[in-house]
């Protein structure tokens, strides 16, 4: 399920960093992005807003609407020599998380921020994700069934 590229030297694609920002623990984003954002000039193109995304399922050739998910979206405009727009869609009613993720998306588009963000924030996010995946796998591993075939005495 991981699109992440833990340990890889390939630069992150925009879809990859947006994913990591959406799934990140909010405190980590707050600790890293907020101080950077306070030194930069930005404005909201769209303030954080809660809404819905209809989640689809699929079986065979049939797509169907499973139900909706609560989502917060946000768009920021980063002003400076280069102006750029940062977008975020994150699960739940999380205005702060959405704002920080949108700022993260904007900073990552700028060369001066891309490298330090990748090295100091996204490497941590990738590592946290790998740890979480491992912990989840370890949690269920002892419940894997080892079958013994019973001799049924037929022969």
């Amino acid at each position, binding site marked *: 399920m991981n699109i992440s590229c833990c340990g890889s030297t390939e630069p992150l694609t925009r879809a990859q960093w947006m*994913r990591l920002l959406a799934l990140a623990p909010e405190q980590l984003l707050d600790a890293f992005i907020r101080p950077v954002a306070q030194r930069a000039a930005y404005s909201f193109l769209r303030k954080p807003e809660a809404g819905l*995304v209809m989640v689809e399922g699929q079986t065979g050739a*049939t*797509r169907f609407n499973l139900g909706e998910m609560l989502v917060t979206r946000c768009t920021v405009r980063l002003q400076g020599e280069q102006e750029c727009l940062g977008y975020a869609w994150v699960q739940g009613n999380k205005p702060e998380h959405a704002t920080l993720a949108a700022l993260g998306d904007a900073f990552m588009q700028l060369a001066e921020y891309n490298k330090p963000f990748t090295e100091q924030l996204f490497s941590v996010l990738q590592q946290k994700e790998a740890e979480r995946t491992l912990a989840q796998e370890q949690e269920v591993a002892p419940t894997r069934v080892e079958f013994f075939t019973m001799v049924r005495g037929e022969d």
Partner: protein
Amino acid sequence: MYVAVKGGEKAIDAAHALLAQKRRGNPAVPEVGIEQITEQLSLAVDRVMAEGSLYAPELAALAVKQARGDMVEAIFLLRAFRTTLTRFGSSLPVATETMQVQRRISAAYKDIPGGQVLGPTFDYTHRLLDASLLTPSATTEDVSAMAQEQAHATVNNVTYPKVMGFLEQEGLLPQASNTEPPAAPEDITRNPLTLPAGRDVRLQNLARSDEGLLLALAYSTQRGFGSTHPFAGEIRMGTVEVSFVPEELGFPVVLGEMFLTECETVNKFHGGAGIEPCFTRGYGLAFGENERKALSMALVDRALQAPELGEAVMAPAQDQEFVLYHSDNVEASGFVQHLKLPHYVDFQAELGLVRGMREAFARHQASAQATTQANAATGTEEGI
């Protein structure tokens, strides 16, 4: 019909105040927190999300608390809330084959790649009340022993391919043709349900259906009302990522994760409607840990495919109108419970009618009795 009545505002306010007081219960007992509900009554939260048709654990927990644990009332609260929000778009279909699995079993194949993983299941428990839970701290030791075992568990990048894939490869389970991409689904929250309903509409309806109704209908198919001989081909539950394509960007972005339960049943099919003998499939998918619901949904989904497979529609579970129009517990509860609203004028009319009918009946009885007596009298005279 019921008509508007005025008055009673004070009584209604007092009733709501009393409701709030009863919800809180004994003030000497600590109040339950939303986090406690999401963490410790998570299956209640999951049911409310599934039937409320909104994935929002914190709000579902709030609904459970506000509704004093009444599931259907909590589901209603969540449904009402979702109508206040705008929709940003639709996700891509969730890829359940990439699920971070917490439980995955097959009752059809013993040896499956990835293995049978029981996860946190009620199965094989003895259903004996556990008195140790009466005292909050009693389980700490078990949990830490478990954590030690988990830390030593070997994990070798296990993958969990879909069990149905094996039957598809052998050609025993009809596969989706790759020629055309599946059509965008109908949405019963936007357009009214009409019959006959396509499978997309049916699956959306079943996904938000009342679990109790689905369970009863699924059970009825097993007992012979539209029997379909199912096997639980695969049940999996775990986390999947949800992505969608924002108009502003034009490429898919992951916006979060959700916990899902998926169930695929296989059913022996003797052939018909131009289809050779094979297996057919029932499909169930639900928010959260919702295994009973997902399994029931798969059985009912298969039963509802009867007309497409040339099977006679003979049982309630196969009848689209019966199932789809009675499956929504918010609608059903609304219509049944509206009977509690004042029907005073209606009932006055009924009173008048019944009294009139009784008068007519009494007159008829009296005249019939008079005739009998008259006849009897005549007969006596004739008998002389």
